[in-house]
């Protein structure tokens, strides 16, 4: 029937296919390889770059993105999206720095988080209860929040804003000169998110809602409650990310956060979470955030002009997303 050459071609094809299957099932490994690849390219382009200090910097910069993308992951798993995260991050940070003097550090943090709570609740109201599309709802609340903060910022130009010491420490300092302190915020958050998604009923239901919302209803799940909580959590995580960013820059410059919107979504997509929801997870997002940070550094290293950087960035993310959709369908 088939000659030996046929058999060997078939077995080779079978091998290739099973390798592909294995990658599909273990996308994390593929992602880590990709990350190492990019790191390798950095080293090749400028030998000696990759050293503990560089690693430490990378982690430092990746943390706020990682925290922001955590909330985004939880929302995208249900098939939604949150475009208001950067406004919330910026707003919470700003509120915190401007109320710290008057109310004390802890209260200031609470006030900052309060903004996240309010915006998340509004998002939840529209999306979970009224069935509005997440894209539009969060677009609106993002604009609203940004506007409110800008107006507020001009009112209090007179009074001073300070970045509380511990925030600055979290944003910029390193333990032993090497381990960024913001990791001590990111790691617990990461652990909590991972555990929630993988080990709790809540997490299970997020996946389930993204996969088949009607099926969840038939199984007796009151979906709106979960979605509401989900968007509130996302906003709170955005507030935390904002705190870290402000600690970074040690100023309450409002514009920094806006460059994080696309990366927060890209990290989730690259990390393997489908934009339609139902599959993926935060572990992939973590690697995705690291990849994007390394990529950013790589492009800076290439000393290419800003426009080229931007084009390459967009193109690479597109290619990764396209490769992903081919791989997972």
């Amino acid at each position: 029937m088939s000659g030996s050459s046929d058999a060997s071609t078939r077995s080779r094809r079978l091998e290739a296919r099973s390798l592909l299957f294995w990658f599909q099932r273990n996308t994390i490994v593929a992602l880590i390889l990709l990350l190492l690849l990019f790191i390798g390219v950095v080293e090749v382009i400028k030998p000696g770059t990759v050293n503990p200090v560089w690693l430490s910097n990378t982690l430092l910069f990746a943390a706020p993105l990682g925290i922001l993308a955590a909330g985004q992951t939880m929302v995208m798993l249900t098939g939604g999206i949150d475009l208001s995260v950067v406004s919330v991050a910026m707003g919470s940070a700003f509120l915190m720095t401007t109320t710290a003097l008057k109310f004390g550090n802890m209260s200031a943090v609470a006030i900052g988080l309060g903004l996240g709570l309010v915006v998340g609740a509004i998002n939840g109201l529209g999306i979970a209860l009224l069935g509005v599309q997440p894209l539009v709802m969060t677009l609106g609340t993002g604009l609203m929040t940004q506007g409110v903060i800008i107006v507020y910022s001009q009112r209090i130009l007179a009074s001073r804003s300070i970045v509380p010491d511990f925030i600055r420490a979290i944003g910029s300092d390193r333990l032993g000169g090497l381990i960024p302190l913001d990791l001590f915020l990111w790691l617990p958050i990461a652990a909590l998110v991972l555990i929630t998604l993988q080990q709790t009923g809540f997490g299970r239901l997020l996946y389930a809602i993204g996969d088949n919302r009607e099926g969840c209803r038939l199984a007796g799940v009151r979906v709106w409650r979960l979605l509401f909580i989900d968007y509130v959590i996302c906003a709170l995580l955005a507030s935390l990310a904002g705190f870290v960013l402000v600690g970074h820059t040690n100023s309450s410059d409002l514009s920094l956060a806006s460059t994080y919107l696309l990366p927060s979504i890209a990290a989730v997509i690259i990390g393997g979470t489908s934009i339609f929801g139902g599959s993926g997870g935060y572990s992939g997002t973590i690697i995705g955030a690291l990849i994007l940070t390394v990529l950013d550094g790589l492009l800076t290293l290439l000393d290419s002009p800003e426009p080229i950087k931007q084009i390459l960035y967009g193109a690479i993310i597109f290619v990764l997303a396209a490769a992903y959709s081919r791989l997972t369908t």
Partner: protein
Amino acid sequence: MNGSAPLLEVRDVAKRFGAVIALKSATLTLVRGEIHALMGANGAGKSTLVKILTGVHPADAGTITINGATRVFRSPAEARRAGIVSVYQDPALVPDLTIGQNMRLADVPLAEVRSSFSDLGIEDLDPNALVRDIPYPVLRLVDLARALSSNPTLLVLDEITAALPANLAERVFTVMRSWRGRGNSVIFISHRMAEVGALCDRTTVLRDGVSVGVTETARGSEERIVSLMLGVDPTKLSPSESAQRHIRGGDGSRAALEVRDLCYGHMLKNVSFSLQAGEILGVAALEGQGQQELFDCIAGVTRNDGGEIAVHGQKLKLNHPGDAIAAGLVLVPANRLQALLPQRSIHENVALPLVRNPSNWGLINAGTERHRVSNAVKRLQIDTRAESQLRRLSGGNQQKVVIARWIATGFQTLLCFDPTRGIDIGTKHQIYRLLREMADAGSSVLLFTSELPEIALVCDRTIVVFGGEIVAEMPASEADEETLLRAAHGLEIAPAMGAVQRATVRSSGTGAIAELANNFSLSVQAPNQSSELIDKIWDAVVRYPALFGMPVLFLVFMMATVAIHPRFDSFDAQSLAMAALPLACAAAAQAIVVISGGIDLSIGSVIAVANVLAARSMNEASFGEALWLALAILVAGAAIGAVNGLLVIVSRVPDVIVTLTTGFIWGGVALLILEKPGGGAPPEFGNLGTGTLITEWLSNSLVVLVVAVALVWIPVRMSRMGLRIYATGSDKIAAFRSGVNVELARLMAYVLGGLFSAIGGLGLTMTTGIGSPHAGVLYTLSGLAAVVIGGVSLTGGRGGVVGPVIAAFVLTLIPADLIFLNIDPNFGQVIQGTLIVLVVMAGGLATIVRDRR
């Protein structure tokens, strides 16, 4: 019958879908000028045969001969060209277009269809009525009329009279007879014996994928047809397994489930029955007799209109499936994919209801859960080899997962809706055996199955539903297939067309449409005018905010502006127009893409590209050269739009992601062309934006905008391409089935989007005189805001360009007004965001209210 040469000969056609054999050996012969009935129980293979005939599926075996020539159809279009047209149960009509537009879409001249309309008794159908407003029965007739207009030699009608009242059904028959008179033929699929007897010349009966006989249909042939539909199935459950069952008596009078006078719309009328613990009650019915609604009401999926449901004597209030589950009533739906999570594992699927309550949202007790799940899986003998993703399991295994879910959760009454549809024999036996075990252990089962012979073998008692009512009830010993078949066809109890006809209320309105509206409680033509007027206005406002809301909103803002700034002069009017131009173009671009069912997050960047291209190239140019350059830039904009569209279509990555990344790329391109704001344009070119025409009040920018919309959008909107774009956004599948190339339509939408973005960019160059690579940043999201506020639904298929353009003006007025009011213009963003939020929340609320009604 005229002529004797067979028009159609189907010989031994077979077809399987994976493990499921839909057709084993189907044979059918049709001569010219014949109306031929195709009958058989659910799952006998009728739909599959029809789909093969009309080119939807290829046959695995057998031959189809038309007029002596063996044919194989690879697509419905091919079949249509050969003269075979089918009218399916699902009308291929786009909901957001009018009847007339749907006809245009499918290349059917309205005049031809209208004569069919009057033949079918729906001549009072307004061709300008939206499809989504028209009652479903009328839509089926429209579909029929459209099919007739293509002059088929063979017309296939699938349950065409299922939803029609008697008078309209009679019209259909008249049309069919006249069609036959012209030498054409009809295949008529129906469950209604009386209709078949009155209309058809011959009947072919299918049973389990095999043609079991053909009979001349004459008076008294019902018996023969019924006996053909029966038959000995050697693979049936053996008699020994159907040994007398002992029903564990309920504890006194408190039934496990009691239903009293249950009503739902026109589908369920005063249904009452009770179910004891340990009993399996069968429900026998043909398609669409109300059994679906019955199960849905008991399971809490829909809310019944009247009557009550009680468990152990306790009356239940079922607002949500969770309430039913809490009362022990669990549903196994016919379409298992409805209940299952395709991407998740078997384990997660089975364990789903275990985490439904907030008390279980915390950490999962893995050990307990695993125990419960594996018990259930073992009991059902689920093949766990494809454990990781549910969608890889076979249909039978998937069905077992649904049942396993409830075993793991615990229940009192299992509501099984056609659990063995499309499942192999072996699994069927397993499931039935399991049901009996569960009943023996004290649970109750309400079982609807379309496999009538199996009712007697599994159930203790059975009820028959026809026309939303229970027409018969009998113990298993009397529930042989023949009795059930007759009862299910309404033969013994009521005339076949009886139930729906009896419900007909003599209406006060004229025409068939009004009558249908009454029958089906739809508000197409409300008989009671006065209070309905307000409802109609409200409906119109909600549906077309652009028509009502936008001009009103704009007027409000204009008046507010003039009130705030009484010295609003022509200069201010010019400034307004100049400032609004780019945003209006962005809004138009986004609107077109959204209408086609997509989204474009790169519009701002494309505006920037056009802007800097113009500023850089026109810097030292003459006016004439500038005009040529402008033309080139317009082409470039369209090309960029094409690239966006192609990437979306080809890469199959969601358009949100694609345009988000390409936005980045085009932004980078803009930076490449011009690093910092600069460049210039000849003053005459600038004047095209900053100057005025005729009067000081009419800014050139406004003229440019109006000309752009008039020259680009209006012609497209009027054309067939515009129709296709709307159709694609409204219902891609219906559009495809109407013959639309949906990919091309989407591509065109992106091209037009790019074009308008380029106009916006050129407009910026005109009004500002320079190019700025960062200019576009705001326009993407603001343009989207204008689209939302302007009344265009993000789901596509509805709205226009005018609404968003006016909304763009409103959005531009806001910061201007704030400046006049000496309020911080940054409040503008707050107002903009709040407007979006309020508008979409109101829209969401309106939808909920409308669905409630």
